[in-house]
């Protein structure tokens, strides 16, 4: 029998690995089948937990790659002010109750898939991957989960639907009536044979609906995550298609294919020759037939999973008069823009925020233009206007499109940031904005309040591996503050959240740091700051700063410098990152463990995430404003 010979072959292979995936013959009676399944797959299913949530997952390779839902791996996107944020402290718990720290290799919110990696001491048992294209409605299925690490749940049911599309997911999904709940979300859906058919997903957007993401989809994403850390969709932007049902077929006279609803003028799709009203009948030589929403999703999936940089060939039918003519279109696929509205390609669109102005902007993608009916002009979109802020006073609104600053066109976020930062650093009194609101062009101006104008702050920065340096630097410079970057080497690396880093020249060296020349000294944290812990010039500068009642700040590891420098600070409340707390305690400091701590003009923080850094900066600013001249 095929299964047996497969088993033998696998067993042979597995000798070296000591383990083999389990399979179950389908003829066994139901109860026994369930029990055997449970026993066999148990070791390959895990619980996934982090500080904010939890779920299940399953092991797909013996060296510790684990698949789960994207939302299970998602972190606090508010605190980190980034849709890309992943949970920081993820723990994976195996069926034998062993715990491992996991890191996120890649995650996506739609399709809701994530890939984690743990480092096991021994090779792990994996699941057998099935083929979701061959799943049939009515076949038996089992949902397996480990919600809190100690409780295993196995629920059974049948496959109710293999092409559900009404949940607005990127791909069609499988529906089962085996109970799916928050605990087994991220866990596997097994066939009777014990092969994984998909990832069970619960609570998309908290709606309490359960469905299963086909395993074929998950495997494609796994490959993307492993090669580049995110799901890179291919596209020939920008066109929108729809499926052709019977009614539409009667109206247009063509039954097979997808109808192009819209092509953005001037886009690659337009230049390649696609036009609204065209009917795509072939893609890369294969016929395109989409009479249902599910078939349409399949078409889109087939398009986006092609390699970026490759060629795509379409055959389209175009109506001229009463006749159809066939046209061949060819184009080079590029990387699709992120679509955060749908959770696709999570995190590539961050909001650029200016908290003191109360303004937040985001770039505009072709999809945003399509969804929100935005004109095709180079601009950035205003996504946040804080009430009562300077931006609100200028009567800008969320949804406005900024096309120019002081009559300089801003075509994208980078340009916008460059132009606005330049003016804020120069303490420009009024900054004029030209915005488009619908078809109206509105001219307004913001008058920023530079409350740190005239103040000087020394940022003590490690040459490499500084944390949150960009945020801190921008905070001061855009508030009119004069900042000196003080380091132990002539050049300092500023890493940006996007992964790009910049090297800038330090303004001064630590040896020459004169605390009296500043209103405040701030020691930036990060692993690199450990080198400063015993730096004599720095310790002396801290002592001087304390004596002169300057604002003294420290982020994370920087607090250890304070502890080392000034025993007189022993009665001041301080905090730092948890890992470094013992350094403070050893020196007899009052470690409070809070996120941000301020005691007079001493301000410290754990620096755990961006939100905490911003709260710290608000306190530090107050200290600077009160510092003695």
């Amino acid at each position: 029998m095929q299964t047996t010979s497969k088993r033998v072959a696998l067993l042979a292979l597995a000798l070296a690995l000591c383990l083999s995936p389990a399979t179950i013959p389908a003829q066994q009676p139901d109860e026994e089948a369930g029990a055997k399944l449970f026993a066999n797959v148990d070791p390959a299913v895990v619980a996934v937990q982090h500080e904010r949530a939890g779920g299940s997952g399953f092991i797909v390779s013996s060296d510790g790659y684990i698949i789960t839902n994207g939302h299970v791996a998602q972190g606090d996107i508010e605190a980190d002010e980034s849709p890309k944020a992943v949970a920081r402290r993820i723990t994976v718990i195996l069926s034998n109750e062993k715990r491992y720290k996991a890191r996120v290799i890649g995650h996506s919110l739609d399709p809701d898939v994530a890939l984690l990696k743990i480092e096991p001491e021994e090779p792990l048992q994996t699941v057998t991957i099935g083929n979701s294209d061959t799943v049939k409605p009515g076949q038996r299925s089992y949902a397996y989960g480990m919600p809190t690490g100690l409780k295993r749940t196995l629920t059974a049911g049948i496959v109710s639907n293999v092409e559900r599309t009404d949940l607005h997911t990127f791909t069609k999904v499988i529906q089962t009536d085996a109970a799916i709940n928050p605990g087994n979300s991220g866990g596997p859906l097994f066939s009777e044979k014990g092969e994984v058919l998909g990832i069970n997903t619960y609570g998309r957007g908290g709606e309490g609906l359960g469905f299963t993401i086909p395993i074929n989809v998950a495997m494609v994403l796994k490959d993307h995550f492993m090669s580049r850390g995110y799901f890179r969709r291919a596209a020939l932007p920008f066109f929108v298609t729809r499926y052709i049902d019977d009614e539409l077929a009667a109206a247009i006279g063509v039954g097979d294919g997808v109808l192009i609803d819209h092509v953005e003028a001037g886009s690659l799709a337009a230049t390649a020759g696609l036009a609204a009203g065209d009917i795509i009948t072939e893609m890369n030589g294969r016929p395109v037939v989409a009479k249902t929403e599910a078939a349409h999703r399949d078409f889109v999936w087939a398009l986006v999973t092609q390699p970026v940089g490759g060629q795509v060939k379409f055959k389209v039918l175009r109506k001229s008069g009463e006749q159809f003519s066939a046209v061949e279109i060819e184009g080079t696929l590029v990387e699709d823009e992120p679509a955060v509205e749908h959770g696709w390609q999570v995190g590539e669109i961050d909001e650029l925020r200016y908290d003191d102005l109360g303004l937040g902007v985001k770039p505009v993608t072709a999809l945003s233009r399509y969804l929100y009916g935005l004109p095709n002009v180079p601009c950035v979109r205003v996504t946040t206007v804080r009430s009562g802020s300077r931006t609100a006073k200028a009567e800008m609104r969320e949804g406005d499109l900024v096309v120019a600053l002081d009559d300089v066109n801003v075509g994208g976020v980078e340009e916008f940031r460059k132009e606005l930062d330049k003016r804020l650093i120069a303490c420009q009194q009024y900054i004029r904005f030209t915005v488009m609101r619908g078809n109206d062009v509105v001219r307004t101006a913001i008058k920023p309040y530079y409350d740190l104008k005239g103040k000087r702050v020394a940022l003590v920065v490690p040459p490499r591996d500084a944390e949150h340096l960009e945020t801190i630097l921008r905070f001061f410079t855009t508030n009119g503050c004069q900042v000196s970057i003080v380091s132990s080497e002539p050049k300092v690396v500023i890493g940006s959240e996007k992964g790009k880093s910049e090297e800038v020249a330090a303004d001064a060296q630590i040896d020459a740091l004169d605390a009296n020349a500043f209103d405040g000294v701030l020691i930036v944290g990060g692993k690199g700051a450990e080198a400063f812990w015993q730096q004599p010039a720095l310790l002396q500068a801290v002592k001087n700063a304390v004596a002169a009642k300057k604002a003294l700040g420290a982020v994370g590891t920087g607090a250890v410098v304070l502890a080392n420098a000034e025993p007189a600070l022993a009665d001041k409340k301080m905090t730092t990152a948890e890992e470094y707390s013992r350094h403070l305690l050893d020196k007899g400091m009052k470690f409070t463990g809070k996120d941000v701590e301020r005691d007079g003009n001493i301000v410290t923080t754990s620096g755990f995430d961006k939100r905490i850094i911003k709260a710290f900066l608000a306190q530090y600013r107050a200290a600077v404003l009160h510092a003695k001249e």
Partner: protein
Amino acid sequence: MEHRRAVVIVCLAAVCLCTSLSCKSSTSQELDGAKVVRAFQGAVASAAEKVKPSVVFVEASTRAGADETETGRRTYRSATISVTGLAVADGGFLLVPLALKPENIERIRVWIDETEYEANLRDSDEKTGVGLLQVQDPPQLVSAVFGDSRQVQVGDFIVGVNASGKEQAFEKFLEFASVKGKVQTALLDELRTTVSYPPGGTVFVNMNGEIVAMSLGNRISLTNEIREELGRMLARAGKEDPNLITEKKKPWLGVTYAKLGDEYADAVGLPKESVLIQRVYRDSPAAQAGLQTHDLVTAVDGRKITKKGPQALGEFEKMLKPEVDREIKFSILRGGATLELAAKFQEEPKPREFRAEKIGIIVTEITDIQWYEKALDTREGVLVKQVIPGSPAATSKQFGEKTITEGNVIVKLGNVPTPNMDKFIEAVRALEKDAASVVLVTLARERHYAHEVINLQIGGRGKK
């Protein structure tokens, strides 16, 4: 069947009358007093008498709020609403204080002269809160007569008439009231009277028997605006409004204005005693005068604007004194130079409208006003002003998504481009000649194109 008789219940605000009557005890004066009261009672009764034949009892069963479960079952909450309906035009048309959605209605029943009838909702308007019903196979009804509700003054006497219900003694009740005050609200002008919460649909007549106000359940509204909406609803239903108010000519300049931002004024160095021109519509008096977007108005007819900020807007509005054919002069600041421009108010243009019955839409030409208000991408096409309920165009597709909605721009009908009203009408005529059962409509909606198929065989005004 219930026996109906008209019962006159008059609750005289006796205090008012007594104080107006002499209280000197004198037989002849008392007799005179009684005469006055009787005459008054008669006047009230006859005022009510005029409108009673037009008033009927309506009961609507609705279902609201569907909760969809995972398996697709919907649960409904049912309710029965009873109101008074008012006959407004031949053919069984009734005005009711119900702005319901067709999908929420289970059944509507009407009682006229002891007989029960079925009725359909033809139209409704959320803004005014009224709806138009049509009774199936109706008997002859007397259409109500509306008066000019602007004439109603505080202190006036009005009489409310409503159809109470279908209990044993079916009655048309009267509510006698005096007007305590008029309140302008965002939606409609409301009356405060000595009657609180008259039943929904109660119509109030003046002493001439003309309807001037109507109860919408939680408020009493003056009827002039309701009448305008009623006129539109009847027009959509293909009926002429017997009571049509001739619409007054609206004076129009073709410009929108806004206050000058403080910071912007400081940034550029502009005077704050001014008003900013935001939009200048094409082919408008303002455009003809040479006004442009971002012009700054500093004086009107030689008089300078003296206030700043939002108060400048108020001052400016008072200076406008809009009237058709009035000439107005603007002193404006543009790019550092001062200009004097003169414009003449015209009558507000009404864009051409067309009712495409077969499809079930009413379209208008695209004017600049709509181009701005709806942030349209294109001026080539016709704008959908309304989708006629129950028509092929009103049929929703999957998930309740509408095929065509108000605000869509039709650029192609079938294969025929429709860049303007004439071409659209041509295309519709061609469609009517054609025996096609489906038509492909190419729309521009929110700056992108979409294709929708209208099945011409569904919907329409069939009898149940």
